[in-house]
């Protein structure tokens, strides 16, 4: 794939935010700071005609070999992949999110479809998206403790879901409940 020319434009427009850029398997990737991510995304959408958000996910860098001992990497990163349906170019943005300030600006104002993806990142990785309209857990139960995709979270989990026992009791209780007994109770 030929160079798309977007990386130099990004470097010129946001010199403080772009940390590093490279190409791997023919895909353009840019490492950025998280501070102006909303501006960068809107620049990519409006100036570079990248209208399609392919995916958005979060990565835990704590055990990543290439990240260990390097200043430009933080504990987490949020990865955005954009694609232009007209020019057929794509670019990946890896915004670094530190552990002590685990939040990043939401891009739901630009792509309403990012709503669920950001909720998923919050749920599984614990990254807070500021100015997100409805940031709740999405895949795990709402009262779940911990964020499963973090590297320190064990594969088999940290015990049963708190609501499980009550749910089990309730289902046993409801087993004895039928139409006739409800009629009796009302008399």
């Amino acid at each position, binding site marked *: 794939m030929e160079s798309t020319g977007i990386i130099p434009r990004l470097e010129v427009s946001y010199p403080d935010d772009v940390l590093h850029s490279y190409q791997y*398997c023919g895909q353009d990737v840019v490492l950025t700071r998280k501070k102006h991510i909303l501006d960068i995304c809107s620049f990519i959408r409006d100036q570079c005609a990248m209208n399609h958000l*392919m995916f958005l996910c979060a*990565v835990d860098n704590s055990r990543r070999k290439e990240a260990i001992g390097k200043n430009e990497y933080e504990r987490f990163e949020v990865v955005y992949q954009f694609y232009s349906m007209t020019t057929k170019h794509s670019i990946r943005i890896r915004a670094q999110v530190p552990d002590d300030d685990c939040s990043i600006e939401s891009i739901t104002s630009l*792509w*309403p*479809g990012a709503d669920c993806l950001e909720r998923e990142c919050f749920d599984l990785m614990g990254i807070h998206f500021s100015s997100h309209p409805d940031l709740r857990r*999405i895949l795990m139960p709402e009262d779940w403790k911990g964020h*499963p995709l973090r590297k320190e*979270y064990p594969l088999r989990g940290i015990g049963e879901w708190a609501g499980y026992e009550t749910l089990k009791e309730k289902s046993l209780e409801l087993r004895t409940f039928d139409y006739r007994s409800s009629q009796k109770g009302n008399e």
Partner: protein
Amino acid sequence: MSRKISFNCPVQAGDEDRYRIQMGPQHPATHGVLRVDLDLDGEIIRKCNPHVGYLHRGFEKLAEHRTYVQNLVLTDRLDYMAAMANNVGYCEAVEKLLAIEVPQRSRYLRTMVCEMARLASHLLWLATHALDIGAMTVFLYCFREREELLEIFAELCGSRLTNTYTRLGGVRQDVTHSIMMKLEKFVDSFPSNLEEYETLIDTNRIWLKRTIDVGTVGADEAVGLCLTGASLRGSGVDYDIRKHFPYAAYDFMDFEVPLGETGDTYARYRCRIEEMLQSNSILRQCIERMPPGPIIGDDAPDLIMPNKPGRKVEVDVPAQQSLIKLVEDRETFMEGDVYVATEVPKGELGFYFVSDGNGTPYRMHIRSPSFLHISALKTMAKGSMLADLIAIIGTLDVVLGECDR
């Protein structure tokens, strides 16, 4: 025994006229375990809040602890209507990461099974979508056709739904003469069968009333909502991964991408019907042009089967080590990240891999179309009638196994 059941539904002040309805997760028209919380004003939906996660199995976490070869079986359980297409999507992504070359014959075989999966999935979609809206007959006809395809899958790889047919670097088994004959028979009869379904619903007055101007999405809005697949093309956006990022043998195939104009449920229905005809034509091209040759590449990683009890295996290498050894030899397994998307029947299925130079993925993210389509449901259902929600869920073609992962 006396017991009273209380429903805990707090109603805000000034909101007393509204109905709150919880649709699902066992509702037959939600295509799985989708729960939708609705705020109704009469019959009009004021607020729609989909809840997912009932089928969450943590594939992304699980994948970090298994090798690339082992993870292949997880992809069958994503979109279980078209497991073949998921297998191909996963293998294409890993092959790009590991730089494995795929022989031409298995590329054609992959294209063939992908299109068969597309037909099977679209037939099931048409059956259930029509059933939701009230046309029972179509359901029975579609299952008849789908059965033929599943029979071919069973003969090809031994299972009907969770196929695991592809392998890294090729496919598992070659086609036999009998499979090709059956497929050819299917391809010959399919267009006339499809016409039959169209006579049932295409100009049916009830069908038209239930689909035209229902769940309309404009082109820009659809792109913003991250819709993909036929749901996006119904709005007239020309975006098909098979054309934009050709994989398998789609480069050599001659096919068109059908587009809708109006972006309503009827346009998406027409898109999928046309897509089925295109798939049929791709299948025919595959049969005619199938090149000879090997079905698996020379540098494909070995599958190491678990030991059977009572059988002594001399060399006992864990699969992970074998993969590491293999990639160390070729020195192509570097640290990096790669995203590869493929066009599955539901839309764009993408795999994002972060590789750490290890035999297992450091991070695997699955971009599932159904997850984003359910996210769009919130916007699409707002302001429509309650009965139309069923049509909108049907037209988005979601499958919860893929949504929840």
